[in-house]
């Protein structure tokens, strides 16, 4: 399961026209442990456009068993837990989209959970916000290119919106 996976927007089952955001998973599996990055993109009609990247998050609590993996992201930054919240691909990344800035400043939940299973070609599963059942179903397929291994911590991102920037 190690490698890059992107949300499937091309197949009949994986239409994501109505989604504001799409995700790419950069998975590293080490025995039963899983970590890596989840990169969020604004669904702008050109999916996974690097300019539309809207936060990258560390996979936390990742576990793998047979053909399934589970992990979660901390969408909200917390002073007590450095590393929670989003990072950025470059210090001057603009986060230009309004919907992106809103989602970063005021995340819909603090923890986004991924429960996926599949094989080398497809990962199917659910994304649930703060463990709220049942969540939404999503499909991921292998992505081309190298697995991304890191992104900059929030302290090094000049244009990353903070909670103070959220609209009233």
């Amino acid at each position, binding site marked *: 399961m190690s490698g890059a996976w992107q949300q499937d927007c091309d197949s009949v089952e994986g239409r994501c026209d109505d989604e504001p955001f799409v995700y790419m998973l950069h998975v590293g599996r*080490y025995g039963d442990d899983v970590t890596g*990055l989840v990169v969020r993109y604004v669904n702008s009609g050109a999916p996974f456009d690097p300019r539309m990247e809207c936060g990258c998050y560390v996979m936390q609590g990742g576990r793998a068993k047979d053909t399934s993996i589970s992990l979660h992201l901390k969408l909200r930054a917390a002073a007590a837990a450095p*590393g929670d919240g989003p990072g950025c691909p470059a210090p001057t990344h603009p986060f230009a989209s309004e919907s992106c800035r809103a989602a970063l400043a005021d995340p819909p939940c603090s923890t986004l959970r991924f429960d996926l299973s599949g094989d080398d070609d497809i990962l199917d599963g659910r994304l649930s916000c703060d463990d709220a059942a049942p969540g939404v179903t999503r499909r991921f397929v292998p992505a081309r290119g190298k697995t991304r291994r*890191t992104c900059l911590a929030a302290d090094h991102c000049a244009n990353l919106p903070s909670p103070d920037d959220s609209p009233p």
Partner: protein
Amino acid sequence: MIRLRTLTLCLAGLFFPMGASAAPPLSDVERLRDGLPPGFRRPTVVVYPVLDARPLAAVGPVAPSPETSVFDAFVAELARHENLNVIRPGQTLQRVRARKGFAENEVEAGRMSGAGHDDYKQVRLDAAIDHLAEAGTLFSRLEYVYVDPRAVARAELVRGQALLEKGDDVDASTAFGRALNADPRLRLRPNYDRPECIDAFERARRAAIETPPAPTELSRWAADEPVSPDVYLVRSRLLPAVAERPERLEIYVVGSGGAVMPDVQALAMPDAASRLAGRLWASLPFGHTVKDKKPGGEVRLDAGFAWFLFAEDGLGAGVFNNVGAQSSFYWGLARNIGLQVAFLVANSGRDTEEDLRGDILTYRAFLGPGYEKRVARWRFDAHLGVEVASPGRIATTDNVYCKHAPPDERSIFAAFCPQDAISTSNRTLLVGTGMTAGASVDLVDDLYLALQVNAAEYFYQLESTDLGRPVGASLSLGYRLR
């Protein structure tokens, strides 16, 4: 001035050491004239009796023993060369009969031939053909055409007759040809044998005269003759004059490696025998001096691939392979006693959970005496001695975030991978007892293939490390230098 001259002479001696002592190589004739040195190993030339095909062309009664003086003179001329160990035709027959399995195969061939003859008399044609074919195969293996040519000829003749009666003209003709090759005086009787059989036989005889059969049996190594690079088989046949081709003697020199040197000599030429013998002598190896090998003293060098793992692994990284190259040097100290020096360099792979954060480059060296036992082409050895090893820098972690992300304080992973989550140790030196055990097999000449297993236990560590007790194996190609 004297010092300058001395220096000049010394330099001349250094740069031109061969100038005064090197002599032009001696020709083979000069070497023979000077006498062969002690311990000289002569090539063995096994001369078979000549197969005289000239009676093929004879019309009417055939003389029982055609004259073969040219061949006899050829053998005598060849034997005059002292560097060759010429086995004369009479001795060759004894040599053929003395080969392993000859007596048993001869009995079996006779039994098959007898059964074939009985089958033919009882008009069991298929059984006759099968039995006589088996007899023919055994006769060929035994080179029985030199021992009892008439027995071979009878078997092939009857097989040819049976094949003809079955309607197989082509194979019948081949069988008649083989019969005539064994006994060129063989003829069928007009008022006894069937006319169509006589016609087919005569056609085969005329074909054998016009186009001598391919020298397949003459140009192959004898199946039961032990292989040796110092032995050469010389088979020959006398062929009748046809059209513009005169009576001639054909010879085939066969080496154990399959090399065949054909030659042909017209009988009517003056000095035909000495001409042919001279050409053959010039084309054969001269021979060589065998140096007395002292017990022990053998020196071998090999190099190949090596693999090992550390059976004692306190890194918590699980088992990981180390693969690299090994070179070993062996020096025979006495009979069955030798010294081994081995040097190995290997790079580690990763454990399944990738706790190791980088490859470990390890050097190992071994020095130890041991016991060696040689059995035919195989050699078995075991050595016990001192091993010195030096594993390179080791970095391990069980923190999954440290495994995944490169160390960078600006990285989003920095908060998850503290500095103390990765433990490191620098290159160190280990000393202990090593042991090896192996087997090698000679491939060709001085080249051999060796498989060896090795293990070590370390007693001294320059810096503490969690690795120990390497267990591994190597596969090498080697060369015996002395």
